């Protein structure tokens, strides 16, 4: 969201929702970059393509010089208490896939955040464009259960094949076991 506007509004007198209402009225259209909504986070540019725009966007960015897909990871926003930094028009979903692209010529970076609904956790793979996502996409599948369509080897990578559940989901327990300091009876 652009750093903005509300010069005439005294925030302390307004409830939070109404500030948002005003903002939405003033900004009906989100800012666009490369044809998709864009936001800024701590000075870093973040693009928010929809699932349908995702591959086409990465493809055109690759033509523009973003040759390397540096990073791909998942986030599970279940139970996230704070305000999600999303531009207007982008509906928050439970999962997000976050992709980092690097342009060596401009020495610039772009980050993509794709919303993935809980009911249908899947996304098209970037493998045909960036083979570097092979391991990261498998990791996201392993840890979050988000499937990548068209990935040549969509299997677990860190956990054993027969493992049940996706550990980095927020509703997956940490798996802590109580520590017993004495009185344990093990034959040694």
């Amino acid at each position, binding site marked *: 969201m652009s750093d903005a506007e509300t010069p005439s509004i005294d925030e302390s007198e307004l409830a939070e929702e109404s500030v948002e209402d005003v903002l939405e009225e003033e900004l009906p259209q989100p800012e666009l970059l490369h044809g998709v909504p864009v936001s800024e986070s701590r000075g870093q540019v973040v693009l928010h393509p929809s699932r349908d725009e995702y591959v086409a966007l990465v493809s055109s960015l690759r033509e523009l010089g973003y040759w390397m897909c540096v990073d791909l990871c998942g986030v599970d926003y279940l139970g996230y208490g704070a305000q999600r930094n999303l531009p207007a028009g982008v509906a928050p979903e439970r999962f997000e896939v976050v992709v980092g692209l690097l342009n060596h010529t401009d020495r610039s970076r772009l980050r993509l955040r794709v919303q993935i609904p809980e009911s249908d956790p899947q996304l098209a793979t970037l493998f045909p464009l960036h083979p570097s996502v092979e391991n990261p996409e498998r990791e996201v599948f392993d840890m979050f259960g988000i499937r990548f369509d068209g990935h040549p080897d969509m299997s677990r990578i*860190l*956990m*054993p094949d027969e*493992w049940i559940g996706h*550990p980095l989901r927020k509703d*997956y*327990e*940490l*798996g*802590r*076991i109580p*520590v017993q300091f004495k009185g344990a009876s*093990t*034959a*040694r």
Partner: protein
Amino acid sequence: MGIVADVQADGLAGLEHNFLTGRVEDLIRWARSHSSWPATFGLACCAIEMMATGGPHYDLARFGMEVFRASPRQADIMIVAGRVSQKMAPVLRQIYDQMMEPKWVISMGVCASSGGMFNNYALVQGVDTIVPVDVYAPGCPPGPETLLQAIVTLHELIESGEIMRRRDVTGAGAGVHLDELQLPTSTALTIGTR
């Protein structure tokens, strides 16, 4: 007859070649403790310190242990150096089973000993749930000095026979028990025939 005469005159000092007496059991223990070869079972951070222990500064060769064996069949001590994941646990047990008796295990570092700071779904909380551990080396990672201390402790236990005694009593250890040979009682064995 000269030897007998010398011994009669000077006692044991009269012998041309000296000898020691002792029980075979003690001799074997002494030999075992001084040439116990470790298996290279480096897993994580501790493996780096384990290798450093083998390096020139700490010189594991002093304890007859510089020969890290890659094959478990040739190793006597398994130093579990690092965190053991759920995925690695079966592999670890398999390697342990492949080692020859007598064998010993040092659990190096808190992760191997108790799961350490990673009390979560991925790690085995203490390698002693998979294999019997003889000595625990604390630290994260234990410095080479700590590992050396653990090794010296283990050597003392081997030499005093403590470990084997305890295992006999508790029935612990690798859990390998040879069934007694069931020979037909009627067959007489005669020496010199087949």
